[in-house]
C-alpha cells in the first residue's frame, strides 16, 4: 500500500507538504470559510490548522479514519477553538438554510467526497429531530441555545438529540470502539 501523505509529512518529506496542500487545501479552506466570520479570519485559521496538521501528522491512523476525515477533524477542532473566543456561533448561510428547511439537505448524491456521502447515509438513519439538530450544530454552527430558539425544542432535548445522534453516526461510520452512552438526559 502506498504511504499516506500524512505519514510522509511526519517523516519530514518536503514534497508531502505540497501534496497535502494540493489535496486538502480546498477542504480546509472551505471549512474555514464556513466557520469564520470573514475572509481574514479564515486565512488566519487555515494557517493555524496546517501547523496543527504538521504537528499531528504522525498520529494519523489509517485504520481509524481516512486522511480526509482526520484533517477535517483537526480543522474543526481548531475552528471550534477560535469560535469560543470570537463568540460567533452561526454560519453565514444558516439564515437561508433555516428558511429552506435544513432537514432536507443531507442528500447523498449532492455530496462531493466519499466521507460526506457516508455521513449523509449515516444521518439518514437518524430520527428527523436528531438529524436536524446535528445539521444545525455541526454544519450550520448554531449553539444549543440557538437551536432551541430556532426550533422551539427545550434545551435539554437539543442536547439529548445531539448526543444520541452523534453516537449513532459514530457507530454507523465504524468509528465506535467504546461503550456507548446509556440513557442520557431525558428529552
Amino acid at each position, binding site marked *: 500500500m502506498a504511504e499516506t501523505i500524512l505519514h510522509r509529512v511526519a517523516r519530514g518529506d518536503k514534497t508531502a507538504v505540497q501534496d497535502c496542500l494540493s489535496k486538502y487545501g480546498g477542504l480546509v479552506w472551505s*471549512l474555514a470559510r464556513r466557520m469564520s466570520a470573514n475572509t481574514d479570519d479564515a486565512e488566519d485559521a487555515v494557517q493555524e490548522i496546517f501547523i496543527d496538521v504538521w504537528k499531528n501528522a504522525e498520529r494519523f491512523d489509517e485504520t481509524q479514519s481516512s486522511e480526509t476525515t482526520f484533517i477535517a477533524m483537526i480543522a474543526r477542532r481548531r475552528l471550534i477553538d477560535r469560535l469560543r473566543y470570537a463568540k460567533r456561533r452561526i454560519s453565514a448561510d444558516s439564515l437561508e438554510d433555516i428558511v429552506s428547511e435544513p432537514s432536507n439537505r443531507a442528500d447523498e448524491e449532492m455530496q462531493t467526497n466519499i466521507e460526506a456521502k457516508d455521513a449523509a447515509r449515516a444521518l439518514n438513519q437518524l430520527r428527523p429531530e436528531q438529524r436536524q439538530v446535528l445539521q444545525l450544530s455541526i454544519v450550520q454552527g448554531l449553539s444549543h441555545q440557538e437551536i432551541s430558539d430556532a426550533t422551539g425544542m427545550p434545551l435539554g432535548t437539543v442536547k439529548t438529540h445531539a448526543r444520541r445522534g452523534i453516537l449513532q453516526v459514530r457507530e454507523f461510520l465504524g468509528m465506535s470502539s467504546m461503550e456507548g452512552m446509556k440513557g442520557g438526559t431525558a428529552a
Partner: protein
Amino acid sequence: MSEQEKEKMLELLSDEAVFGLSDAEIAELAELEKNFPELNDESFELAAASIGMLNLDTSEPLPAHLRTKIASDAEKYFASRSGKTEVSASETPAEKEEEFQKTFAFEPKRSVWQWLGWAVAAAACVVLAVNIYTTQRQLNELAKATPTPTATPQIKLTATQEREQLIASAKDVVQSNWGDFDPTKPKNVQGDVVWSNSAQKGFVRFRNLPVNDKTKETYQLWIFDENQKQPIDGGVFDANEAGEIIIPIDAKLKVQKPKMFAVTAEKPGGVVVSPLEKVMAVAKVSA
C-alpha cells in the same frame, strides 16, 4: 469510578464534538480523562468531522498567496523541529511545544522582515510628507496667480429619484418584495429591494418597519451572494419615520449573484457578523 462519571465523560465528549465546550467543561473533561483515558479516542470528533463535510463546496482552491505562506510556515516548522531533534531528542511533548512556540512563535506578522518593511514604509512616509509640503506650497503660489473658476451647480437627487433613475437606466435590475423570516412571528414589514449588479447600486424601500430607538439598536442590511460564503454587509440605517422610507444600499464588497437580502436589528453601529437574533424581513431573489 462510577458509571455516572463514565456517562458524564461520554456526554462531554459528544458535546465537545458537536458544540465545543466551555472552559469549565474542558476542565471537567480533563479530570474525567484521568480516570477513563481509554474513552478518549477521537471517535466522536471524527464522526462530527464527517458530518461537517456535508454540503461543503470544496471546488474553490486555497488562495495562492495563502498557500505560499503556509508552505513557508511549514519550512520554518520543520526546520525548527529537525534542528531541535539534533540538540535534544529526549525532551517531553510539552517542552517540544514550548520550543516550537519560541522558535516558530506563530507570529509571522512580526517577523524581522516585516519590521524592516515597517521601517522602510516609515522612511517613505517622511519623504512623501516633504514632497507633499513642497508641492502644496508651489500649488498655493500658483493658485494666487490664477482666477478661481465658478463651480457648476449640481442638482442633488433624492433617494426616491435615484431609485427611479436606477430602475429606468440599468438593464439588470432585480427586484424582490420583503417578507417575513418566520411566518409564525409575522412582522409585516412591506416594501421591496432593487439591485443592479452592473451599477453595483441598489435601494431598499420599507413600509411598517418600526421606528428604532437609536440608543439601543439600529437596522442592518445583509446581502447573501451565491459567490460569497459570508453575507455581505449592506450598511446600517435607522427608521426615523413611520411612513415609507428608502435607503441606498451600501455594500461593503462587490456583489455578484445576490440570492437573498435580509434586514436585522443590531446594536448601535451595526455588527461584523450578525447573531441573527432579530430578523425583521427577508427578500429572496428569484432565479
